[in-house]
């Protein structure tokens, strides 16, 4: 099997989607969604049969453990995202469905390549391939006035960040004389000022992608305005890709000098956790609340990153998986409710959900508990592990900040639970959930619970992957 098997498969799928989009008209175009879902599912399943191949020295494109882990994660997340998108029933959307799925798949392709990229140019190109479709997709929704506004903001912030990233990469290239990441890693053993500047600029650029404070500001607006299934996917997959890129650039093969980044990353982690959690408190829109909570989660993952150890990295990978399930599940429940409530994503739309649809409420509750870090759902182990990793390297203050902020986070998750379970519903009708959406939510819930009950296998995989980096 070629190391490019997944990328080739995805390319073929994109061609297929394109072709079907050409030959179908109007409502028939729904079929492209099914096709993409199926295709991504096949790829996702297939990815689990791939074996990581040891990276050739100086190879620009590798399929090592990290790459494979990332790809599997992206594929699963994309599959869930597409499943969620299948329920979008707006006529305008249906008409433009091939466009939507093609862009989604294109972005996915960018991620897949990014996960494997061990070369600066490839990294940058994959990064842009991933990003540019996202700008389009975020404007791809019924209420155009806010969607385009969100798209513009996302675009402007994103491009400026890209420029910063590219500027940084140019310095890295200039200081090391190579675009190979292995060379960069070697040069980092004795970094000169130019290289340092470059690496810092790159960090700022990647900070945008993972939405660390203060590069996060596009997140709430975009999440609020864009279509929810897309946001569910946007909130996890590109972030995961961003983290994979960070691991590649900052950790892989760098050795001891990684300690250089600890204070910066720890600082970013702290302010991101603080800002995300605090700003989530006053929110009245579910999507916006989840957006800020997502920022906070990035902060928690940065805690694991700040540990710059194999276990820390592994815990971030675990966290990413837990976050994918928990966050996507929560967003998709919001989408289900919004579909029944005329598109309202206000917190009040969730009122009395437990009485209108107990299962939906339960799924939401489980996802929220996971995000909040309650035992026996995935998020709990995730938080515990990153704190553990940070404590191992002596970052006790960071653990303390994180633990205290967990209480703050629980506060707003419980507010959501209160809306669903305690308050009386505004309307009494039961909520009908589209089958595909229900399936997506089910997958997320199972993931959350399964990882919560039995996290060990994933932890072991993550540890193996992380050990490959050091």
């Amino acid at each position: 099997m070629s190391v490019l098997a997944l990328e080739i498969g995805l390319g073929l799928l994109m061609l297929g989607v394109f072709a079907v989009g050409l030959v179908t008209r109007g409502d028939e175009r729904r079929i492209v969604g099914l096709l993409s879902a199926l295709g991504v599912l096949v790829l996702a399943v297939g990815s689990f049969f791939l074996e990581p191949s040891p990276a050739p020295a100086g190879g620009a494109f590798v399929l090592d453990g990290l790459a494979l882990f990332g790809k599997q994660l992206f594929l699963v997340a994309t599959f869930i995202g597409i499943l969620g998108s299948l329920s979008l029933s707006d006529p305008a959307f249906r008409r433009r469905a091939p466009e939507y799925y093609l862009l989604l798949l294109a972005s996915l392709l960018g991620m897949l390549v990014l996960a494997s990229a061990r070369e600066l140019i490839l990294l940058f190109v994959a990064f842009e391939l991933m990003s540019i479709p996202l700008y389009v997709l975020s404007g791809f929704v019924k209420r155009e006035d806010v969607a385009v506004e969100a798209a513009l903001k996302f675009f402007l912030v994103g491009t400026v960040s890209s420029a910063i990233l590219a500027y940084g990469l140019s310095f890295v290239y200039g200081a090391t004389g190579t675009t190979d990441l292995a060379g960069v890693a070697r040069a980092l053993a004795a970094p000169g000022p130019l290289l340092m500047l470059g690496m810092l600029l790159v960090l700022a650029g990647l900070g945008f992608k993972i939405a660390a404070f203060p590069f996060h500001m596009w997140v709430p607006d975009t999440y609020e305005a864009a279509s929810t299934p897309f946001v569910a996917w946007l909130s996890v997959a590109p972030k995961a890709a961003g983290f994979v890129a960070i691991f590649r650039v900052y950790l892989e093969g760098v050795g001891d000098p990684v300690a250089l980044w600890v204070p910066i990353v720890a600082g970013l982690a702290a302010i991101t956790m603080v800002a995300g959690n605090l700003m989530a408190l006053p929110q009245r829109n579910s999507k916006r609340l989840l957006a800020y909570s997502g920022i906070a989660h990035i902060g928690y993952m940065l805690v694991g990153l700040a540990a710059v150890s194999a276990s820390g990295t592994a815990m971030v990978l675990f966290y990413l998986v837990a976050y994918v399930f928990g966050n996507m599940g929560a967003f998709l429940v919001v989408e289900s409710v919004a579909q029944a409530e005329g598109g309202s994503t206000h917190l009040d739309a969730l009122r009395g959900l437990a009485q209108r649809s107990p299962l939906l409420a339960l799924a939401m509750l489980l996802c929220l508990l996971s995000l909040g870090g309650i035992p026996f759902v995935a998020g709990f182990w995730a938080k515990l592990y990153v704190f553990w990793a940070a404590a191992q390297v002596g970052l006790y203050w960071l653990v303390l900040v994180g633990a205290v902020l967990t209480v703050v986070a629980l506060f707003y998750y419980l507010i959501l639970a209160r809306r669903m379970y305690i308050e009386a519903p505004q309307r009494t009708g039961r909520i009908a959930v589209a089958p595909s959406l229900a399936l997506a939510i089910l997958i997320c819930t199972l993931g959350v619970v399964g990882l919560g009950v039995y996290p060990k296998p994933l932890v072991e995989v993550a540890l193996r992957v992380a050990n490959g980096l050091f």
Partner: protein
Amino acid sequence: MGWNGLPILTLITWAPFVGAVLIMFTARHHPLAVRLIGAVTTGISLVLSVAVYLAYDTEAAGFQFYEKIPLVPALGISYEVAVDGIGLILVLLTAIIIFSGVFASWTVQTRSQEFYALLLVLVTGVFGVFVSLDLFVFFLFYELAVLPMYLLIGIWGSSAQVRPRGIFGWAMRETGVGSKEYAAMKLTLYLLLGSAFILVGILALYMAAGGSSFSFLELEGAAFDPVLQRWVFLLFYVGFGVLAGIWPLHTWSPDGHASAPTAVSMLHAGVLMKLGAYGIVRLGMGLLPEGTHDWVWLVGTIATINIVYGALSAMAQTDLKYVIAYSSVSHMGIVLLGAATLTEAGLNGSVFQMFAHGIMTGLFFALVGLVYEKAHSREIFKMGGFGRMMPGIATAFTLGGLSSLGLPATSGFVAEFLTFLGAWRSAHSWWLFPAVAGTFLTAVYVLRVVKQIFWGEIPAHGEFHDLPDARGPEWVALGLLMFVIVLFGMVPWIAVYPIDTATVPLLIRLGIRP
């Protein structure tokens, strides 16, 4: 396995859970059926608890009715249940309280099927904690016992009148002090924070013992590093202590108990707070002898603060439920003080007080619920002369009050007296004096409340006329609890025998007895 092949502890634990499932799936729209299912399933637990209690072999001592089913062999997690003398009596307590609770909340109207289902799920968690020997499963049950509380208080609770005043008045307004949502949120956040401490402690022990088993019996055999013991004991103390209401982490409890619906207050103050104390005794003292010796001074001192401070705070309250809630804070001080004495008398007193206070406070909250339901008021100083209209409730309340102030022939006295003996024999004999002072303060506030509410004349403003006495199902709850209070007060040895079989080995483990 179990008892003559019968997995009796499993039956006790899961019978309410089955009830909850039945309620959710079969009896959703039949209020009476919901109640009957609740009564029957908790009744099964109660009967079996009594059976276990009677069948427990005090000669053999140790953990009995042992059952074990491996769950995740790779991690050493298994469903492993058994009871010793301490677990035994707490299982009995839980069964009594929940059985009474089912009857005490007979008149819940809104969403009653969900109420009962959540209540039964919660009690499964409580039973589970008391019988689990596997710390992982213990923790699972622990969370199960904490989480439904948020919904139970949030949905069926009641709000109190709290005037935002003082230098932090604005903060109180902003957080909504007094409302049930506030209380539910505070309680849940506090307890979850506490559980995080506990979990870290459990995992630390698990790792230190080699990471092969979560079983209490195996961890008991491991010799932990003294430094580790010191820190983990502190984790357990703070984590469980939040639930046990240790000062100054107790402030969730008055608000929470005051806002919770009757059965939940009963269960929470009656059993869940004991769960915290149980955790400290079982995990903290049982697994960490050296950690215990490092920290008992703190545990006992805080406990004395609890006793006096809680009693004084109770005295200052004007809301009946707050009085009872603060009295729980005070009485939990006795529980922890008894444990901290590290003497046979003190430990027996501590466990006995867990039981005695559970029953007594359960009775109190049941009564307060009844009074509130009938008079629609909790303001002590607006009530008066209720004794004439509700003599039954007045009698029961007085009995509860007498047990609370440690009157002999009620279970409260035995517990307090044993604790006093232990306190004097402990390394910090001065603990005796605040503890005794606490009983006097209790006498002051309890009798003051009894006098104000039930004695004297009915207020002239005519708000309270023809208030009915307790009746029907409510008497099942009250009668059972009153009977238990008197029974265990008069013949305490039926409880002290089994308790002693568990506390003496604990003392031996702590190196206090040879």
